[in-house]
């Protein structure tokens, strides 16, 4: 196989990697916010349930969660419910939503009480206080840890191959069956390029938010 043939093959797999990455973010970013509200709820039973859930999801390997989402329905009901790709997106979204929720929670809890009270005495609604005062400060605080987590996600997508989702590393492993091993190392270039772009993006965003201090 020529270099270009390998590259094209890997690009195919890389497309899948990007799809897992993007869809996970689309679902996990908002879901994480909902989970973080649950974990800060004043209603104790809800808070307890949500925190136990987060503990389980963060405490069990993501690989195992992939197996569970994909194989468990088939084991219980005799036939699988989700196809491989859907199962991957579900497992990744839930897993990452839990990690994001903890970052959101830390960011929200770090907002000084006085900021919210200042909004209250100025007659603002809870919604206005959240959207106009807290949110921007939370975003500024969470950009660095979110950047970290999102970069981890890029590399975690490789786990999807355990349920035979054909992402870039899976493709490279297939090529090994043809006794060529170098494409495996070549995949690193794709990951590095992706992470490089993300790093620049987050750096730019942090800089853009640096006009004020929280």
């Amino acid at each position, binding site marked *: 196989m020529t270099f270009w043939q390998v590259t094209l093959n890997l690009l195919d797999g890389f497309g899948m990697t990007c799809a897992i990455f993007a869809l996970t973010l689309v679902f996990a970013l908002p879901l994480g916010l909902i989970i973080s509200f649950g974990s800060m709820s004043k209603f104790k039973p809800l808070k307890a349930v949500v925190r136990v859930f987060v503990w389980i999801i963060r405490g069990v390997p993501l690989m195992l969660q992939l197996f569970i989402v994909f194989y468990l329905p088939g084991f219980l009901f005799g036939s699988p419910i989700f196809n491989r790709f859907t199962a991957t997106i579900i497992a990744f979204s839930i897993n990452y939503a839990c990690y994001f929720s903890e970052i959101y929670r830390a960011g929200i809890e770090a907002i000084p009480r006085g900021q919210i009270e*200042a909004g*209250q*005495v100025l*007659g603002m*609604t*809870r919604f206005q206080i959240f959207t106009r005062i807290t949110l921007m400060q939370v975003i500024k605080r969470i950009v660095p840890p979110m950047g970290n987590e999102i970069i981890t996600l890029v590399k975690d997508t490789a786990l999807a191959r355990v349920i035979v989702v054909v992402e870039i590393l899976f493709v490279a492993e297939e090529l090994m069956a043809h006794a060529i091993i170098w494409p495996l190392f070549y995949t690193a270039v794709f990951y590095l390029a992706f992470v490089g772009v993300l790093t620049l993006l987050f750096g730019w965003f942090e800089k853009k938010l640096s006009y*004020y201090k*929280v």
Partner: protein
Amino acid sequence: MEFLEVQGIYKSFGNVEVLRGIDFSLSKGEVLSIIGSSGSGKTTLLRCLNLLEKADAGTISVNGEIIIDAKEEDSYTDKEIRDKRLRMGLVFQQFNLFPQYNVIDNLTLAPKLRVKEDKSLTKEEKAEKIEAIIKEAEELLASVGLSDKAKSYPCEISGGQQQRVAIARALMLKPDILCFDEPTSALDPELTGEVLRVIKELKSGDRTMIIVTHEMEFAKNVSDKVIFMADGVIEEMGEPNQMFSNPKSEKLKAFLQKSDEKF
């Protein structure tokens, strides 16, 4: 009936009684200073007046209208609480400016939102009102001597300037009564003067104000009335001259002596 009537305010946190029956009244345009050692309940009292804390008992009325009745406080809707809060303004010890907005936006944020959510206004009326709000903010900034800082962010100006912005921001909502919780305590000594000067100017503008302060000299000069709080009660109340030169209660005597020693 006086402009502000505060009657029988009680407040506990758990089983700690922080306010144990606070009664006082204030006429329109008068300035009241509240002094007392730390932990005596001054902040809690201001917070009850501004509905940041729910009093356990008591009533507060402004201009003959009961705005807070502890018995009914649980039944107030969010909208009612917001409207009631606007009767009072509060300037915090830590300023609490919004860091992501520049000075002028700190002033206009809340009043603009009130205009925007008012469904009875047409688009043109809203635009007109918002223009008026911006103009007013500029005037208020000028009155606290900060016209040139309108576009600065809070992190770019000094503590004294931040507190002056916070005062202007509170005034934007046209409160009947403006409360200050130790407005200069978080400031370096050389910056307290500019803030106290602004408060003094407000007095000549006939503002009704309640000022919790440790600046005894200032309290003596600016107030029409002084309250000395100790352990959740009003230990002594009166005219500033009489209070400071001829205190009656032992506790006030001891307190004044201690605050003299600091200098």
